[in-house]
């Protein structure tokens, strides 16, 4: 048995489990410990079903079903929990019973990406080559260059892929094209690159049609659902910022003549939610194109509505009402502007153009509003 020392203990445990629980699905891994593993993995991972032997060593065979732990992990990263360290080991993985003629799909080592991909592969026999993208999804990693030509070329040689498959074709996710130069990969490795569909759910149709992607499969979308799943992270970021704001309000209350109360809390929180959740959700129906503008408009509607219905214009609350009307729509605009980074269609040139106008306006308006609110709370 060629097992490295660190894994010895696990191997012993495994042997015991194997004897006591031979029928269990996940315990077939030991039959092949005579070959070196190409891709190291944690034997406790439920998504590894076993191992397959190749001329270059053993490769983990993965499940195409997601278990509760996978779903919980996905939910957590959507809320920003453990998001930067949700990753698997780069290397080669197997789905089904692939042989030397089976297709090779390339993807990123963000566990969320990996899960989205493998759940679409049931019934298929294929290889998955996972690049080291530092736990970042394909598109973002391609933009940064970690899902890139060099990493792909290196990973091909590190895993010994040319000796595992007899063909010379790789299927890359289309969004990986931002980082990978197909003709460079072909020149350096002899593997030709075929860009697959944008979304993992189209992989089966793509493979079954002889590597043909429809226009629909090639187009990036940004559906209401796509936008909804991105809003929790925005909200968490804004909540951290808001804790500071509440802290300052609390300090001001210690010596304020007119203290901040529940209505201030509501009007502020509403503006935050407007910028981080409402604006992203109804993005396409808000008039205009610049994100900051859309956020400002929605923030203005909220603040106007709240101050109006609270009767602040009529009851001597005019000063804070104007203060909030200057400060809060700017705040919503700022949060909405930051959603450009989560969107799938904004260009850097466009964002720069938008920001050159929006950022000074936001700063001036917010500063003026805050000054009015301060005057209102400390004046005798």
């Amino acid at each position: 048995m060629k097992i490295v020392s660190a894994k010895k203990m696990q191997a012993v445990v495994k042997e015991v489990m194997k004897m006591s629980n031979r029928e269990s699905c996940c315990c077939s891994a030991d039959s092949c410990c005579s070959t070196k593993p190409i891709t190291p993995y944690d034997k406790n991972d439920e998504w590894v079903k076993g191992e397959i032997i190749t001329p270059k060593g053993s490769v983990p065979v993965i499940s195409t079903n997601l278990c509760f732990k996978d779903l919980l992990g996905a939910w957590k990263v959507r809320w920003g929990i453990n998001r930067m360290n949700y990753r698997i080991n780069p290397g080669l993985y197997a789905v089904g019973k692939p042989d030397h003629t089976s297709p090779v799909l390339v993807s990123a080592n963000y566990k969320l990406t990996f899960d989205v991909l493998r759940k679409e592969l049931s019934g298929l026999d294929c290889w998955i080559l996972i690049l080291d993208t530092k736990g970042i999804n394909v598109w973002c990693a391609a933009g940064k260059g970690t899902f890139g030509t060099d990493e792909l070329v290196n990973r091909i040689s590190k895993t010994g892929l040319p000796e595992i498959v007899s063909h010379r074709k790789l299927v890359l996710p289309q969004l990986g094209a931002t980082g990978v130069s197909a003709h460079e990969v072909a020149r350096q490795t002899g593997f030709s690159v075929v860009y697959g569909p944008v979304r993992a759910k189209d992989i089966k149709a793509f493979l079954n049609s002889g590597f043909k992607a429809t226009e629909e499969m090639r187009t990036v979308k940004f559906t209401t659902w796509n936008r909804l799943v991105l809003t929790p992270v925005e909200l968490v970021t804004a909540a951290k910022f808001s804790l500071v704001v509440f802290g300052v309000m609390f300090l001001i209350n210690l010596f304020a003549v007119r203290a901040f109360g529940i209505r201030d809390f509501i009007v502020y929180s509403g503006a935050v939610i407007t910028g981080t959740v409402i604006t992203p959700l109804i993005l396409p129906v808000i008039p205009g194109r610049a994100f900051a503008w859309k956020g400002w408009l929605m923030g203005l509607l909220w603040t106007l509505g709240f101050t109006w219905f609270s009767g602040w214009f009529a009851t001597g609350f005019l000063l804070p009402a104007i203060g909030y009307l200057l400060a809060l729509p700017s705040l919503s605009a700022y949060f909405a502007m930051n959603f450009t980074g989560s969107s799938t269609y904004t260009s850097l040139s466009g964002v720069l153009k938008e920001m050159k106008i929006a950022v000074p306006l936001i700063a001036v308006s917010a500063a003026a509003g805050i000054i009015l609110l301060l005057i209102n709370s400390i004046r005798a």
Partner: protein
Amino acid sequence: MIHRYLKNVTTLRLLIEKCIGCGRCAEVCPHRVLSINENKAQIDDKDLCMECGACAKNCPANAITVKTGVGCAAAVITSWIRGKEPSCDCSCGDECC
């Protein structure tokens, strides 16, 4: 629904005389900005371009230029503060850069 961002801002340029009509650009574009017509690439709707750079990166004839970058306001603000080019580094935690 097609989302549209600001007009007339993209830095995407196609040098038609260099184009060999291989079709890679049309294949990789996530917003279907490019297509092949009579063995040459053409830009159909440049305002849909998000400057991801996939077309230029995969053009074997270097017929496409685009100033690529991340269309992310938070990244731009960070770049103003740090004096660097905007990049997606918000998503890599403390360990890198």
